């Protein structure tokens, strides 16, 4: 039997129970409303495939840790791109923008001999300025973002070449910068980070739940909230456990354990941007402009300013991606941020579930989609195929991961939601 309760505005609603909540969830899934489920499913399938074919290497603690470092650039660019995509715009220049910012940092560190706490902010500021310029061109002049950022894509390639004086590589030696995407937290800090993270998540969830219940608004049953917290805790702790195993290749020579430093970096930005999008006026306005620009304009939202701001965020995140890739490679060259970086980043956001038409997407989608892309890249290289075949397989595996997603979503249109 269901019990009803009265909520805001006197609307009678069914009091949700754990059972009804789970029943509703499955009904929603059958109805095609899936959130990140399909991308996560696709990820699981991939892990299964690679895990079965290269168990000892793909599933090793070392490889697991490597995944985070390898994904850093794409995940950061993709997180920024989510904002741009939410508005139905595109930024083709994000890849090379990250290269330019990375190069700015590298040059300041080496040629100018400045310390990291000058060079890193300088790179970030470069990103912000780039975003401002792109945003203004799109919002104020009204040039389609595809064209603006295509021009920027070419221009930044040239800037990068010029910064690197026609093709030199610049190696960096700054230990702090190098540690960003190579170093690890100590085992103690790794656990500390996991515990603080889980506690923070639990607190946020419970406070929110309390707030709604106390004001007599429809809230999830406590059981579901607790289950969600438990799930996150299990994930976080088991990941930390694996990451704090000894994973040095040659244990005699060196020891390597602890959560890679990029993990807290990714988590912090994920939390910040998720908060911004879900819980602030600004985020609400981003969704509104992306969903229906005209409606947003009529509601008095400063559409142009929002449009500029997403390009700033995107280029800013690209700058961090650039810093991290330079850190990882300890060097910057004229192709940093080139190649497939951009397509992969957009792909990451889209696979995660972000719409290219605007209005639909979350930052977590970029992280999950980035994981899909990197697992494919990582797994494929472990198979040791020759180039041609590897490209073909990469394409096929990407398609397979996306099909899981598409098939899961298929019923959505059939049932009309």
């Amino acid at each position, binding site marked *: 039997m269901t019990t009803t309760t009265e909520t805001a505005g006197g609307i009678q609603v069914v009091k949700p129970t754990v059972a009804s909540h789970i029943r509703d969830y499955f009904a929603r899934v059958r109805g095609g409303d899936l959130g990140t489920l399909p991308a996560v499913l696709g990820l699981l399938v991939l892990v299964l495939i690679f895990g079965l074919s290269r168990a*000892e290497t793909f599933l090793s603690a070392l490889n697991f840790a*490597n995944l985070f470092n*390898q994904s850093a650039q794409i995940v950061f660019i993709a997180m920024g791109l989510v904002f741009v995509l939410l508005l139905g715009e595109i930024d083709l220049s994000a890849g090379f923008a990250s290269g330019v910012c990375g190069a700015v940092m590298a040059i300041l560190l080496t040629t100018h001999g400045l310390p990291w706490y000058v060079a890193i902010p300088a790179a970030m500021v470069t990103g912000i300025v780039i975003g401002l310029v792109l945003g203004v061109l799109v919002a104020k002049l009204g040039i389609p973002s595809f064209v603006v950022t295509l021009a920027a894509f070419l221009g930044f390639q040239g800037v990068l070449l010029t910064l690197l004086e026609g093709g030199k*590589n610049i190696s*960096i030696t700054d230990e702090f910068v190098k540690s960003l995407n190579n170093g690890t937290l100590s085992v103690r800090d790794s656990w500390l980070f996991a515990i603080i993270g889980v506690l923070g998540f639990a607190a946020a969830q419970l406070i929110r739940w309390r707030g709604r219940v106390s004001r007599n608004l429809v809230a999830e049953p406590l059981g579901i909230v607790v289950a969600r917290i438990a799930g996150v805790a299990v994930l976080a702790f088991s990941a930390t456990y694996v990451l704090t195993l000894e994973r040095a*290749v040659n244990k005699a*020579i060196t020891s390597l354990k602890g959560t890679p430093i990029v993990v807290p970096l990714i988590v912090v930005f994920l939390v910040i941007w998720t908060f911004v999008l879900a819980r602030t006026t600004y985020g609400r306005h981003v969704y509104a402009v992306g969903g229906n620009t005209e409606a947003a304009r009529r509601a008095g939202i400063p559409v142009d300013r929002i449009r500029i701001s997403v390009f700033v965020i995107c280029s800013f995140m690209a700058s961090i991606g650039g810093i991290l890739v330079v850190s990882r*490679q300890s060097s910057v060259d004229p192709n940093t941020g080139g190649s497939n970086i951009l397509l992969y980043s957009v792909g990451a956001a889209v696979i995660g579930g972000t719409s290219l038409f605007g209005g639909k997407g979350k930052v977590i989608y970029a992280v999950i989609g980035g994981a899909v892309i990197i697992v494919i890249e990582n797994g494929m290289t472990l198979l040791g195929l020759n180039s*041609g075949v590897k490209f073909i397989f990469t394409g096929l595996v990407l398609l397979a991961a996306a099909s899981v997603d598409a098939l899961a979503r298929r019923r959505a249109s059939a049932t009309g939601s």
Partner: protein
Amino acid sequence: ACGTDDGGDTGTGTSSSAGKVGVILPDTKSSARWATADLKYLTEAFKAAGVEADIQNAEGDKTRFTTIADGMIASGVKVLVIVNLDSGTGKAVLEKAKTAGIATIDYDRLTLGGGANYYVSFDNTEVGKLQGQGLVDCLTEKKAAKPVVAYLNGSPTDNNATLFKQGYDSVIKPKFDAGDYVKGPDQDVPDWDNAQGGTIFEQMLTQNKAIAGVLAANDGLGNAAIQVLKRNKLNGKVPVTGQDATVQGLQNILAGDQCMTVYKAIKKEADAAAELAIALAKQETPSTATKTVVDPETKAEVKSVLLAPQSITAANVKDVVADGFVTKEELCTADFAEACTKAGI
């Protein structure tokens, strides 16, 4: 679930004592050699020695390069052979390998400051010098007076292209300075893209109709330039250089459209590298690395095997065939049968 570092090798044959070797090749764009020649020869060499090898190509992507390296290190290789995409990434990989206790070999390209254990290579600057000298010879043969020489360089983002250019500049620039040659257009071809190369050369010719010699950085770009010259019936009249001794390049040479190419006996290079790697994998001290090269950055000496590239003109195309680098069937198709006979193949 995967704590053992032992590869689980249970056999007792000769190979059991040898560890696995990882090889990372750079790309498929700067030259056809990586995917066609090196891969084949290295695979054969390792197979012959019964050593397990994992050979991969980074597709010109540095991120992928490091990803592959991570994967190889994770899979427990004992020797890592790399052709770096740039010294920075190369160095990062070499350092990681070293901390993991893996022996390293720089193949074809020296990683500056990387401190690899060994170095096997053709000298890229030397390749450029041969190209420059080849062009000079062809121009002299054509008795060109104050010829305008155009440069069709490789990808601006490829460090090798810079090295090649250093090589041919060292031969030709003095001629410019002396006023013997006239400096013509000088442009890079992004990604070594042949189609773009063709367009760029077409524009050079539109811009300067007097171009009398083309220094093209490899056979693909050479062919692109030759097609433009053909359209203007200037093929054969304007010498064009190349590199890699590809079938296409050799055919152009036989047809008289290309002046020379540079042949790098890749099999020798591959065999030398494989030999080193196999020795290291078996934990022996290799004896073949007799020369040394000084790392310009650290001033450290790296034990090396150095091989000499060879300049190929119509006169010695047959050497390449004799070497088995290209087969007669590939080269001497119907259109070129006559020229082949003439060249003594």
